């Protein structure tokens, strides 16, 4: 009898942790997707992507908490704020550094320092707690389980965005241009396509998603000034696992890493982070280019 109860409890615990892992993984997907696209399509290693996430999260915090406006407006403006910063970095600096990965890495890591310090300057170094839409503060009851509504909403947003990005990349004209540019830049430009404008758009979109992810992710993680590097590390892990330049890879890698992290934290609490890195190393040893990566 006791065993049965404990068994049911264990199943529920696993299920809850699985859901926690998936919702966390969706945030990871949101942040990694933009970075992965920029890396795979434009060949730009943008280490400031985590800092863009942080900028978005802080802007969202100002709108939603400080001014007490709508959470969705915060998500939108957070995305636009990060998109603007990303746009400026691309136009002002990265544009001159195409095909120079070493310089890109140093430049964008410089921006991690700059943006982090500016955020501390503007918003202070304090840790800001989680915030969400009041309508999502409750729980959803489903098949005997009650689960936070905000986490359900995060999972839905992640799925919708994944579908949207996949559709954009595989089914639209812009996506076709982008994929063509990835395979053969000179030939695509020779066909009279203004790749620079497409690159600008892609970079803006990726930065926008990073900032949007910052506000969405703030529902779980809050906002703090270490996020610029923390989120960068997580995004890199997801990209390594999923493979560079692939939306499906980022989604799959994000969920996998999220679930591994949640289960690891629940069942091996002494091994925080380690389970995640171990999963990454194992995948790398089996398949160095990631699970769904394009061969570079």
């Amino acid at each position, binding site marked *: 009898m006791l065993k049965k109860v404990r068994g049911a409890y264990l199943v529920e615990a696993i299920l809850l942790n699985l859901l926690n892992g998936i919702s966390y993984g969706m945030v990871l997907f949101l942040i990694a997707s933009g970075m992965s696209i920029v*890396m795979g399509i434009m060949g730009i*290693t943008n280490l400031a992507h985590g800092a863009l996430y942080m900028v978005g999260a802080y802007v969202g915090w100002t709108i939603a908490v400080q001014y007490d406006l709508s959470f969705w407006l915060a998500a939108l403006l957070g995305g636009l704020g990060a998109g603007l910063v990303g746009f400026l970095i691309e136009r002002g*600096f990265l544009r*001159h*550094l195409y095909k120079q*990965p*070493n*310089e890109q*890495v*140093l*430049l964008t*890591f*410089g*921006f*991690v*320092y*700059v*943006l*982090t*310090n*500016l955020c*501390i*300057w503007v918003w202070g170094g304090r840790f800001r707690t989680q915030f969400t839409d009041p309508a999502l503060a409750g729980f959803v009851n489903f098949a005997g389980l009650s689960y936070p509504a905000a986490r359900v909403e995060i999972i839905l947003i992640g799925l919708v965005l994944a579908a949207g990005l996949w559709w954009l990349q595989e089914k639209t004209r812009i996506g076709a241009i982008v994929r063509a540019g990835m395979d053969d830049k000179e030939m695509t430009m020779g066909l009279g396509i203004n790749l620079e404008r497409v690159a600008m758009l892609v970079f803006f979109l990726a930065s926008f998603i990073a900032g949007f992810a910052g506000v969405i992710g703030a529902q779980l993680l809050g906002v703090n000034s270490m996020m610029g*590097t923390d989120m960068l*590390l997580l995004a*890199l*892990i997801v*990209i*390594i696992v999923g493979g*560079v330049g692939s939306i499906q890879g980022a989604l799959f890698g994000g969920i996998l890493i999220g679930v591994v992290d949640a289960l690891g934290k629940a069942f091996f609490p*002494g*091994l*925080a*982070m*380690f389970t*995640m*890195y*171990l999963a*990454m*190393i194992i995948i*790398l*040893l089996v398949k*160095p*280019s990631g699970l769904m990566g394009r061969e*570079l």
Partner: protein
Amino acid sequence: MAESRPEPRRWFRHGQLIQFIPLLSAGIVLIVLPVFLPSHLQIVMTKFLIFALFAISFDLIFGYAGLLSLGHAAYFGAGGYTVAVLMLRYDINSFWIGVLLGLFSAALVAALFGLIVLRVSGLYFLLLTFALGQLLYSVAWNWKWLNSPGMQGIAGLSFPDLGFLPVSWNNLNFYYFVLLFFALSYFILRKITNSPFGHALVGIREGEARMQSLGYHTWLYKYLAFVIAGTFAGLAGIFFAYHNRMIAPGHFGVTTSFLPMAMAIIGGSGTLFGPVIGAAMIVFVEYFASIVTPDRWPLILGSIFVLSIMYVRDGIGVYLSRLGKKVSYLWGKH
């Protein structure tokens, strides 16, 4: 036409005298100056030497072999943690045991990681080295044995015991001790980069396929360079542990890996003196910025990265050496 230029006098053209000016000034700065500095600046000078060593070890694989690693701190941390664990867990203070085991563990980690990361190149190499460095970071974070009680990392280290040479350490003689090893390492790395092996590495950087078709076993060259670089990074880590009095998981991580890369690129990669200049820039600017405006220091550091990438593309060290050559040429014309 170059031939129609007036020939500079012979000993100037060969630069036999003029080439000693940078060496001489470097000697004065490194050997004589520290005696007159206050103690806290001697510490900064020591830190500069340690990071200069770290940066030139990085430049062997980055500037010469063309491999961009984001996990070079793995070997730095391995060296530092080895001497720290020896002190904390086994009460072994001997420098000679520490340096032997520290170099051995750094070389071992590099040899192991090299097998994994050199299967790929380019972007995936960057990602893999990053991943392995972070793996060590998380091991150091989680493993109780690698942490002093109640904290992350190992604190309370002291200057090492030299055994047969009883030294009462102060900041100045520790500085000279590091300088000795730095000069030795610089000399060895200079020999390596000037050897056929070093030239082959540059060849691999410029065109690996071409080197392969010339019959070079390029993987082996890269692997050897990787292990050598890791070993010297381990030496830097050993001195850093003694110098800093503590070592933390972060010294395995990406923020530490980033420093030698920044120093090499800012100073001028593909040379040995470039990273040294870069290390001087970063360490001293950090020191002065932390006095003037400690809160804004990261902003200044980040801006230095951005500006040096945008405007001094080849690195400040290379720029200075070009300036020096120009000056010596003009000098020779008189």
